[in-house]
Structures are given as structure tokens and as C-alpha cells.
């Protein structure tokens, strides 16, 4: 295995520049040529160890000695790449390339690789093109197309195109495979939704996978059918949660909502209401009109015609109060007689109480003697007037500080905790990777390509229930753009709790990057100050030296 892996690395590193030679080796191999025993023996005993590469390859010091060494390494490399590779024909699994489906169908029983690679369709064992290519390079698979075996170069040409997978993706795939990871394609629909994650229900993919094995048929609609039902239970759950503890919703909620839906028509109703007013006297037709608009010249209620039994205004009720109209009373009350007010007048609490001078001053004036107040017809107008007046009065703050375009960051009259003060100073707000990600829409340019599982799980790995991936892989190139924040957010959100790794391909070399949340620590005051807002507020005005003193004494 290890030898195969090494050869493989050689192959991939040389693949771009070395196609011609490879072509030749492949051709030789594919022509079913039988090798002589001596040749076979040679192939077995030869060292396949590829010379290691290091920093010196990229940053040479320029000395002759080093240059010679590097050159020697390179030649060794070339010679190894040039070498013909020998495999036992019986060990090769036969397969056929089906371009229309972009899959490779196995013709003979699969090898050990079947544990981690490939899939079944209608009872047939198939491989994805990248898997087939990788196996070809490992010397495990021989792919035929139109009854002729494909060379590795042909494999590259046919298997890797815009419809299947780019060369960069394949390079990442191969690299990870050679390191022992289990890699398979990422299917966005396999990611459980936020709600599914919360409930910790088994992955729907696992379920559908099992079903696939039983029925031997792929059912992509399975998941989409399931979607609405889970949503349904979600809604039900929430409703069930509402109990006695939630009187937040005002009564008649349904009515309220229905009415608010009709809100847009309010303006039209307003117009109608006014025309009704000018006609003067038909019963109301628009029961939904909010009764706020008052354009008439006098206050709304004519209290002279409303017979309130007011004992305060002596002049009016000398005698008795007329009996109220029975239709205004509840049925059971029936009609009642007039009411003699006089005895009640004697029984009022006339106690004036003791008033301090300040109170007397304050209450001396009747606000209704004010002409402007008299002119107000309703609360809205009256409040406007009050506001206008209070604005004239209010000038407490030092004007020079607060009236310019730049104002102090903190109003000392508003006590706040140190944490809040820190927040104010914090001009750049911290952001989290997942913040707001659910609202962003993904782009086609960036997508997650592979699920990667750790090598040590290979023994227990099952394709039908792969479990949680170790990481997910997004492939990009050094020549291409760097993923922006939006991409990072979208992909991180899509992946959920599994980290996304960015594999950046620089020709043959692959680097891996990942983005992680971190928080810059903020200096928060000790508990003693947090518990005492007065102290903190005072502190915000003092300089830090004083604060340190207080801190010391607090300890």
C-alpha cells in the first residue's frame, strides 16, 4: 500500500509536464504485453522511493553544491516518473466508462476499495470518475471505453471536465486519498436542517441510503417529501408550548390580525368617513375605521348633553337628577326614578388637607385660563403644545458640548456599566462567522465539494451510514479569487457544526486553510464594580489611575 502511494505521488507531481512519457508507459501496459521474468524481477526489487522535496526546492541558496544536489533529486524524480509500472493483470478490476451518465461501471468484482468508494445503481456497482481515475493511478483498476483500455492520460482527459470535476478538485481528492482519508462527494441535501439538528434526529441521508440498498433504486424525491412533514411537527410543537404562562398575546388576537390585514384600505375609508360627515347623519358603514381623526372645530364630546352626576359643579344640580333613559341600562335594572342629589352634597369629603407653599405655588394657576390651551380641542393638540413649551424650557446640558455635530461619547448623567462603556468605545463591532448567515444566499461559484473522514475510521466506515465527516472541503485555486466573508458565512452555515476547510491548489501543491471564530478579550472590571453602578458611573468620568486605586482598595 505504502509503495503504491509513493508511486502515485510521483505520478501526480509529474502529471502535467510528463504526459507524453506516461502515455507511453500506459500504452505499453495496456497492450497486454507480457514481461520477461528478469524484467519482472527488476520491477520488484527496484526502489520506488521518491526523493523528498523541501524548502530548498523553492528558495535555493544559490550555491553550486546545493544546485547539484537539487538537480540530482530532480533527475531521480524524472526517472521514477518515466518508469514503466508493472501490475498483475489478475489484480486489476475491470470497468467500463459510460460517458452519458458520467460514471464508471464495474465489470468484475470490486476490490477492497469498495468499502469506502463507489455506489450502487440498479444493482450495478459504479464509481465516480474521480474515484476511477484515482484507482487507475493506484494500479487497481482498468477502465475500458469502446472495448479498448484507457491509458491514465486518457483517463485524465475523459474523466475530468467541466461536467464532472476540475483537475484541481481531483488533485485535492487524490491528495487526501493518498493520505488515507475517506473522501466522498458532498451532497447539500444530506446536511440536516437547523431544526433537525436541534432534535438530533438521525440523518435523513442514512435513512434514504438504507432504503436504496433494499429497493435498489435511487429515490431523490424522498427527502423533499419529508421536508414539509418535519416543518409541520415543528409548528405543532411550538403551539403546544403555549400554555398558561403566555398571556403576552392580547385577547382577540385573531380579530386583531384580521383587522390589521385590512389596514391598507384605511385611507380610503378615511375619505369615505369624511364624505359621510358632510352628508351628515347616515349610520356608520365602516366599522373598521380607527376613531382618531378629528377635524371638527369643537371638542368631540359635548358634555353639556351628557348627564354626568357631577357633585362638584354646584350650580347645575340644585335639585334632582333626571332618571336615565332605560335603554342605556342593563335589562335587569329596568327603569329607575330620578335621583335626589342634595343629600350627597352634604356628605362629600371637603377636607382640603395641608398644602405646602411650594405646592400652592405650583398649583395656583388653572391651565385652562391659558388661551392656547383653550384653543386645543383634543389630547393630541394639547400634547403638542406641551411639548413645544417644554422644549423651550429644557436646556440643562452644557450647550457647547452637546449641540455641535460631534457630541461626547457618553452622557455622564446616564450611569452605565463598564461593559456598556466598552461597547460604546468599540467602534468596530465584532462579528461571528455564523451571524446573519441564514439570510444570505449561496453563490454557484463557491460550493463544498467533499466530505472528508479521518483515516482511523476506515475500518468501521460504512458508505450507507458514513456518520459525521471530520471536515468538509471547498476547493479553490491560487490563481482564483480569495473567498470573501459572504462565502465563508454561507458555506459555514451550510456545513453546520462541521468545519469547512479550504483546499487551495497551486499547481501540484495543496495548502489547507480554515477560518475560525475567536474573540479579542475585553477588559471587564471586577465584580465589585459591576455590582455597584453608581461607582462605575462615577468612574467613567475619572481617569484610569484613580480606577486602579479603587481597584486596589476594593481587593
Amino acid at each position, binding site marked *: 500500500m505504502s509503495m503504491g502511494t509513493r508511486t502515485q505521488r510521483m505520478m501526480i507531481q509529474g502529471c502535467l509536464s510528463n504526459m507524453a512519457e506516461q502515455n507511453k508507459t500506459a500504452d505499453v501496459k495496456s497492450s497486454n504485453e507480457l514481461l520477461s521474468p528478469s524484467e519482472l524481477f527488476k520491477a520488484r526489487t527496484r526502489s520506488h522511493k521518491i526523493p523528498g522535496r523541501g524548502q530548498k526546492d523553492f528558495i535555493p541558496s544559490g550555491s553550486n553544491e546545493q544546485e547539484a544536489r537539487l538537480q540530482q533529486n530532480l533527475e531521480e524524480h524524472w526517472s521514477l516518473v518515466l518508469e514503466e509500472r508493472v501490475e498483475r493483470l489478475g489484480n486489476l478490476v475491470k470497468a467500463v466508462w459510460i460517458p452519458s451518465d458520467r460514471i464508471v461501471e464495474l465489470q468484475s468484482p470490486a476490490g477492497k476499495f469498495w468499502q469506502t468508494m463507489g455506489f450502487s445503481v440498479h444493482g450495478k456497482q459504479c464509481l465516480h470518475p474521480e474515484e476511477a481515475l484515482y484507482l487507475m493511478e493506484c494500479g487497481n483498476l482498468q477502465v475500458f471505453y469502446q472495448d479498448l483500455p484507457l491509458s491514465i492520460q486518457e483517463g485524465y482527459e475523459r474523466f475530468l471536465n467541466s461536467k464532472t470535476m476540475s483537475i484541481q478538485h481531483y488533485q485535492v481528492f487524490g491528495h487526501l486519498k493518498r493520505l488515507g482519508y475517506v473522501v466522498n462527494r458532498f451532497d447539500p441535501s444530506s446536511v440536516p436542517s437547523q431544526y433537525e439538528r436541534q432534535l438530533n434526529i438521525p440523518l435523513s441521508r442514512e435513512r434514504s441510503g438504507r432504503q436504496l440498498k433494499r429497493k435498489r433504486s435511487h429515490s431523490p424525491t424522498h427527502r423533499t417529501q419529508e421536508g414539509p412533514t418535519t416543518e409541520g411537527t415543528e409548528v405543532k410543537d411550538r403551539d403546544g408550548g403555549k400554555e398558561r404562562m403566555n398571556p*403576552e398575546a392580547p385577547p382577540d388576537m385573531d380579530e386583531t390580525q384580521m383587522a390589521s390585514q385590512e389596514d391598507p384600505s384605511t385611507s380610503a375609508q378615511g375619505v369615505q368617513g369624511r364624505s359621510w360627515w358632510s352628508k351628515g347623519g347616515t349610520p356608520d358603514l365602516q366599522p373598521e375605521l380607527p376613531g382618531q381623526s378629528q377635524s371638527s372645530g369643537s371638542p368631540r364630546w359635548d358634555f353639556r348633553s351628557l348627564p354626568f352626576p357631577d357633585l*362638584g359643579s354646584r350650580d347645575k344640580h340644585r335639585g334632582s337628577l333626571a332618571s336615565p333613559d332605560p335603554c*342605556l341600562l342593563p335589562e335587569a335594572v329596568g327603569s329607575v326614578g330620578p335621583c335626589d342629589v342634595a343629600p350627597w352634597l352634604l356628605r362629600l369629603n371637603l377636607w382640603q388637607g395641608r398644602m405646602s407653599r411650594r405646592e400652592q405655588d405650583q398649583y395656583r394657576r388653572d391651565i385652562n385660563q391659558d388661551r392656547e390651551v383653550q384653543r386645543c380641542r383634543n389630547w393630541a393638540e394639547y400634547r403638542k403644545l406641551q411639548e413645544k413649551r417644554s422644549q423651550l424650557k429644557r436646556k440643562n446640558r452644557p450647550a457647547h458640548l452637546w449641540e455641535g455635530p460631534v457630541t461626547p461619547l457618553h452622557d455622564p448623567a446616564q450611569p452605565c456599566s463598564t461593559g456598556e462603556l466598552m461597547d460604546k468605545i468599540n467602534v468596530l463591532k465584532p462579528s461571528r462567522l455564523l451571524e446573519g448567515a441564514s439570510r444570505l444566499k449561496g453563490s454557484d461559484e463557491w460550493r463544498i465539494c467533499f466530505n472528508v473522514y479521518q483515516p482511523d475510521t476506515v475500518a468501521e466506515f460504512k458508505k450507507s451510514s458514513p456518520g459525521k465527516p471530520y471536515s468538509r472541503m471547498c476547493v479553490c485555486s491560487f490563481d482564483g479569487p480569495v473567498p470573501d466573508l459572504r462565502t465563508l458565512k454561507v458555506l459555514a452555515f451550510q456545513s453546520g457544526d462541521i468545519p469547512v476547510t479550504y483546499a487551495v491548489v497551486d499547481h501540484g501543491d495543496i495548502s489547507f486553510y480554515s477560518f475560525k471564530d475567536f474573540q479579542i478579550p475585553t477588559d471587564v472590571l471586577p465584580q465589585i464594580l459591576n455590582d455597584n453602578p453608581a461607582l462605575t458611573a462615577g468612574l467613567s468620568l475619572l481617569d484610569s489611575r484613580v480606577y486602579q486605586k479603587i481597584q486596589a482598595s476594593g481587593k
Partner: protein
Amino acid sequence: MYAMATEGPEKTGEESAGAGTGIGGTRYDLEKETELRFEVDSGEKVQLELLTGLAEVFGSELNRNKKYTFGPGSKIAVFTWQGCSVALFGKTEVAYVSKDTPMLLYLNTHAALEQMRRQAERENERGPRVMVVGPTDVGKSTVCRLLLSYAVRLGRRPTLVELDVGQSAVSVPGTMSALCIERPADVEEGYSVQAPLVYHFGSTSPGTNIKLYNKLTSCLAEVFSQRCEVNRKASVGGCIINTCGWVKSSGYHALVHCASAFEVDVVLVLDQERLYNELKRDLPHFVRVVLLPKSGGVVERSKDCRRETRDEKIREYFYGFRSTSFFPHAFDVRFSDVRIYKIGAPSIPDSCLPLGMSQDDTQLKLVPVTPGRDLTHHVLSVSCADEGEDGTGGVRRGVLESPVCGFIVVTNVDTQAQVMTVLSPAPRPLPRHTLLIMDIRFIDLK
């Protein structure tokens, strides 16, 4: 102590007739427009039955031949418009019939309000908004209940706005609430509380945090106005605002503020002429201020009595009326799972402020409370406030303005394990994690 006692109540109870009809009951024959007042001794209970005619208790009609039970401490007045006869069973502390009731005045007030509602309905306007004010123990709550019951009996849907933080008829004490009234209050149980809007105030006196009191008044007014805009019936029904008995200095200003916030049309002043004159002077001319007498039957309540009523109200929240209908849950809550706040920070001495500055908003500050043993027996409100995703900064905004979705009582605090045991009307988990502490304590005995 009993105002009526001095007026020589005429006792028309005919024991002889009562003995003839009831089994140990006392029969009272009431004339037209009179009322039977009785109080129940502590540790006793009294049953009331209407034998003939029609009668009502605070606006709610009595059913004939049904026995109503009143627990210890009840102070009840049975009024009849056309005459009736009732029977009382059990030991009453005092029971007498009085001719002298201001019910006719109250009924006239209702008639005027109903006239306003008709006008509102006709003109597509909003109905009357009424504020009931007066010093303590003049029957404000009773007048509210009367007016609401009469309105509901005519098919209106008025809203009760309960601003009396000491003796709330809707929720536990220390809260300010609004309740849509859809049926007359039950003779025994009071209002049927369904989906009230409740705000946390945290104390039994508005004086402890008058700014918060005014702010919550404005909040309630705003929500009520929004509701009126979309619900025509609620708009026509108007509202009846019950206020605190504190009518001096800040308390008085709170009343004026409330009138302005709710844009009240009518203010009913009970009993005190001075308050009447002050309000006439300080409210604009388009507000009708009406002075009404208090009923002679109103009884002064002692401090102990008020405390007991408060306790009973909290018990009723958890266990239901007469501790029978609800079964609360007890469970542990970890300190780390909840955030407990107190509203109102201590003020800074002026010497700490720059010259010419004054602090304004300490009373509306949220102060985090470190859970400790002193939390035991306190009532906590579970705030409906949206909890920010990160749980650090976002949560503070809107806690004041958010209604309360329920209450819990801390029954035990374990500082070692960092958990507290709470009594809750619903099983765990708590629906929200922002808790507001009240000054009010409740010891869960019985």
C-alpha cells in the same frame, strides 16, 4: 370604622320569616334601591341565596336559588333595583340593610358613558376612556367593577386598566395590567382573567419608582391605543382605569400623566373635593371631571388586611381560586440559565457629576442581581423580552417595555450548587430566561 354605623342603618331583617323558610338561614327582604351589606368573620364562611326578585353584587347579577359562598374577610353588598329577598347562611360579623347608597349616581354615570359609547359607535370614533381616582378606601375598584359589569351587560367590550400596584384585581400585586372584559365579574371569583397584558412594576407602592410607574402607564396606553385601532369593539367599549389611592405630590402627577397618556375623556373623582378641584385645574377643558360620593358601605382596610389580600392574590395565581383548581410545579433552575434583574439603580451623588449636570434615568436602569440566599421567597416575573442571540448586550433593551409572561416564586436557594428551587405555574423549562425581581415576597405555606 364603619361609616354606615353612625348613620343608623335600619335593620329590616325579619328573623321570624327567615326562621320559617331557611334551615338556620337569615332572611332579608330588601326594598327597591336598597342594599344588604355584610362582612364575613375570619375563619368563617357565609352563603348567600337569592330567594325572590332580582339582585346584584357589584354589578353582577345573582342567580335565583343558587348558593354563593364568601370566604373569610369578604365585604359584600347585595343591591336590588326593584326589591328582592335573600337569605344568608353562616356567621356574619355584621349584616344590615341600607337605603343610603350612591348606586343611582353610579348608574347615572354609567348611562352617560353608555351615551358616549353610542355616539362613538355612530360617529366611528373611539369610546370613552374613563379614569377613576380617589384616595384610599373610597371604593375605586368597586366603581370600576360596577361600570364594567354594566357595560358588558349591554354587550360592550370595555377594557379594564389596572394601575393599582398594591391591590391588583387582575394579576399578582406589583404589576400593572390591562384586561379585556367580556363578561361580568363572577360574584365569587371576580374577573375572569384570560390573556391579560401584564407589566412588571415590582413593588406595592408607585412611590418606590415613580418613573417606572409612569413609563409603564405610557406602555399600557400605547398598547391599548394600538388595539383600539384594529379592534373596533374594543375601541367603542373604551377603558376604565383604576388608579392607586396615592393622590398627593408624585402620586398626583402620576394621575395627570396617566390622563394624558390614555387621553382620557372622563375622570371620576371619588369623594375628595380637593382632588376634584386640582384635576379640574390641571387637566385641559375637554376632559370632563366628575365628582362622585363614596358609598357608605366602604370599609377601611388595615395594613394587615391589605397584606393578606395580596398574599391571597399570589396564592390564587399559583393554586387557583380557593387553592383548588391549579397545581403548580416545583423545579430547580440553575443560576447560569437565567439572568435576574432589578429595575432601578441607586442614584449618584451630584458631587460625582460634572457641574450643571443632573442624572435622569437611574430609576429605569436594569441592574443585574447576583443570586443569593436573600432571593428566597421573592416573587420573580418572567419577562417576555426577546433575548438577543448572543445574550450579552441585546437583551437589556426592551425588558422594561416588555410584558410579563408569568411569575415564579423562589422557594429555596442553594448557593453551593448554584441552583434555586422555584414554584412555577408551568413545568420546566422556563419560557424565557430574563427574570425581574419584585420587592414582594410570598411564603408558600398551607
